[in-house]
């Protein structure tokens, strides 16, 4: 019997069948202006399959990047994207390359990647969907520079908000920046598309996005990998001045050139092997458009449908308008399935009346929000619902996530509640991290959660509006991500508020990744911003210290000005993970 790696651990497997992967031959082609004629994608070439590996969707992106000659990768942890960089960090530990590192936030990660591209090397930057809001500035602008080493942005969206504060759809961002966006339907495509994305990034001199969704990011299966190509050596371009300095006169020209390039980008996407149109010549009543993972849910129901409607699958954007028009001319009604916003549907519908009827999330045949699934697709296709086993007479109590037993955040929040007990009207703003669970009973201790770092700016605003006491609660990693700049505002404005930095020394919620700075640098950052040393305390978030901590908190709440408390005790999960790592 052949020895195989256990399922959870990625490793090489024996070949089962050899199927051509949809990878282009590496031609080293580079985009040379926009005046040339139609720039079709080359036909997919047969590629030697190197290995079979069990990979998460996230890991398939990472492996695709490695095999595309990746030099460096950067990210900030965020569910469901975290496993992309985690995989690359493990890969680097074993193979000595590529460079893979966590950054302070998504913006700094993106900018590091941009520097790698400037140096002529291939680079990957990964984040969750809301992380792209933070990195939006460098992302949008990087579409105007002349990308050198391929720059691929992997963004994991979270339809259904399994672990996020919204379900924004990153395809709008790709359109906003006027760049190519790949949307894999499965792990194999995630691998192949990532490799192709690097080629397209260099060919069109733009960043290219890979849009994942939770379901693919966190599902694993066998992926066949192809022959890797080596990383490029760093080099400096002689044309930097004319294509990387986005002063208005240069930016105008670069923007104009990007717009001219759209024609060639569209031609490439139209002929992509990932955008497939199959017309059913026998029937004209129904057409189906799927994007990304929605195809899986459609295929799941196809057998019961009894016939194959004309079907367009979109795996890469900009929208292949030629194929959409071909389908629209062929059928009377089109049902659109997308796991995300009705991005495609809204573009197809527009405002003016159409000859063809369009159904989807916008029109109501598919629910407007939430994660797509096989049952939703089934209903929209008019198939009878399948009932599962039913049980009656018992209420199934919900089981929301909660603090781990012995969590330091729980002790911090207990002390805070004690400190606030005597006040009539209190406000506690908070942030993104494990401590957000303190919003739930029995703690009910924090009252807001909007975006990374918002707790501090919001507390300042609430204090300036006249509320007292105002307390902000933020974790150490979130503070370093986006809390330092609002703290500068707080100090400058002398806002009457107290900031608690719940310091557990790790990025806990996403799986105990390291923070960019730990003690004593964290203290130095707070003091460096200008917080008065006499109103800055480092406390131990220990149950035995609760009363002492509450006293100090109360004293600082009473102080009419900005005060900062670091409530410190290490995350128990991080301690456990460190032990596991040490034993391995």
């Amino acid at each position, binding site marked *: 019997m052949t020895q195989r790696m256990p399922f959870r651990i990625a490793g090489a497997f024996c070949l089962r069948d050899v199927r051509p992967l949809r990878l282009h031959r590496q031609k080293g082609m580079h985009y040379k202006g926009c005046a040339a004629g139609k720039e079709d994608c080359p036909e997919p070439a047969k590629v030697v399959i190197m290995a079979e590996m069990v990979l998460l969707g996230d890991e398939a992106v990472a492996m695709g990047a490695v095999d595309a000659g990746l030099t460096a990768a950067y990210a900030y942890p965020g569910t469901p994207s975290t496993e992309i960089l985690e995989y690359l960090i493990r890969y680097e530990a074993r193979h000595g390359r590529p460079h893979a590192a966590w950054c302070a936030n998504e913006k700094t990660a993106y900018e590091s990647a941009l520097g790698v591209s400037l140096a002529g090397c291939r680079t990957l930057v990964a984040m969750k969907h809301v992380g792209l809001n933070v990195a939006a500035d460098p992302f949008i602008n990087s579409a105007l520079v002349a990308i050198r080493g391929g720059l691929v942005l992997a963004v994991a969206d979270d339809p259904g908000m399994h672990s996020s504060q919204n379900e924004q759809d990153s395809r709008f961002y790709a359109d906003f920046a006027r760049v190519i966006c790949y949307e894999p339907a499965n792990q194999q495509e995630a691998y192949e598309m990532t490799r192709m994305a690097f080629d397209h990034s260099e060919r069109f001199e733009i960043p290219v996005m890979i849009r994942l969704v939770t379901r693919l990011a966190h599902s694993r299966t066998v992926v066949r990998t192809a022959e890797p190509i080596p990383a490029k050596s760093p080099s400096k371009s002689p044309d930097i001045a004319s294509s990387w300095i986005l002063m208005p006169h240069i930016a105008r020209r670069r923007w104009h050139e990007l717009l001219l390039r759209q024609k060639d980008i569209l031609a490439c996407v139209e002929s992509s092997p990932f955008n497939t149109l199959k017309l059913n010549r026998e029937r004209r009543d129904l057409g189906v458009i799927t994007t990304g993972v929605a195809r899986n849910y459609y295929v799941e129901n196809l057998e019961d449908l009894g016939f194959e409607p004309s079907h367009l699958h979109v795996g890469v954007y900009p929208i292949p308008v030629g194929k959409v028009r071909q389908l629209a001319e062929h059928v009377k009604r089109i049902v659109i399935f997308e796991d995300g916003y009705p991005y495609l549907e809204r573009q197809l519908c527009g405002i003016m009346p159409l000859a063809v009827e369009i159904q989807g999330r916008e029109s109501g045949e598919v629910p407007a929000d939430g994660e797509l699934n096989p049952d939703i697709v089934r209903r929209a296709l008019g198939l009878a619902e399948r009932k*599962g086993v039913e049980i009656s007479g*018992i209420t199934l109590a919900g*089981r929301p996530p909660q603090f781990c037993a012995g969590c330091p955040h729980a002790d911090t929040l207990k002390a805070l509640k004690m400190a606030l007990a005597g006040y009539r009207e209190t406000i506690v703003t908070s942030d993104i991290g494990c401590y957000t669970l303190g919003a739930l009973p029995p703690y009910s201790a924090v009252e807001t959660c909007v975006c990374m770092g918002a707790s501090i700016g919001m507390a300042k605003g609430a204090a300036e509006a006249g509320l007292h006491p105002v307390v902000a609660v933020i974790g150490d990693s979130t503070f370093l991500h986006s809390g330092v700049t609002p703290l500068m505002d707080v100090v400058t404005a002398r806002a009457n508020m107290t900031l608690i930095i719940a310091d557990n020394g790790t990025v806990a919620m996403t799986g105990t990744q390291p923070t960019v700075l730990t003690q004593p640098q964290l203290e130095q950052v707070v003091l460096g911003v200008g917080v008065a040393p006499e109103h800055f305390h480092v406390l131990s978030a220990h149950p035995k210290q609760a009363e002492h901590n509450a006293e100090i908190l109360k004293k600082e709440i009473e102080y009419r000005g900005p005060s900062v408390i670091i409530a410190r005790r290490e995350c128990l999960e991080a301690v456990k993970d460190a032990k596991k790592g040490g034993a391995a």
Partner: protein
Amino acid sequence: MKYDIILAGVGGQGVLALAAAIASGAMEEKLFVKQAEVHGMAQRGGAVMATLRLADREVASDLIPHGTASMILSMEPLESLRYLSFLAPEGTLVTSVNPVRNIPDYPDLEELLTRVRTLPRAIVVDAEKLARAAGSVRATNMVMVGAAMHLLPIQPGTIENAVRAIFARKGSEVVDINLRALRAGRDATG
């Protein structure tokens, strides 16, 4: 052949290792395998659900449709009932009897187990007791794999090999405890 399994439990119970044992066995027998799971916020002591799809041909969807799962395999009795709508009318529910009472409104356990037993095909196992006898309560998840083994489209010997491979890194004592737990689960139900 297609065999879809909903795996249920509470964060920290080892649901993902349970999935890995079955998935590794299935791969060894050249089945197509897809395993989807929940990460992040939901892991912290909350309800955890993973899906495992085994088939003799490629399966497209990572999610299992309602009313089609062959099995619900649960580490916890309350969690076993949460996903019943996914279970096919002819499907089997396999659950441990051991509750995780980390919520204030946990239902009456006897009533809960009575409800489970009224289902057409239900297997309940005192998995913690069997795991303790095998050497460690941490092997409870392997008892549950054993309890489900006679229904899975995988040879028991293949699953044993998978368990050996998964725990090999932790030494022969841990491997033996988990194999004993697996067999105890099998003997209790098979």
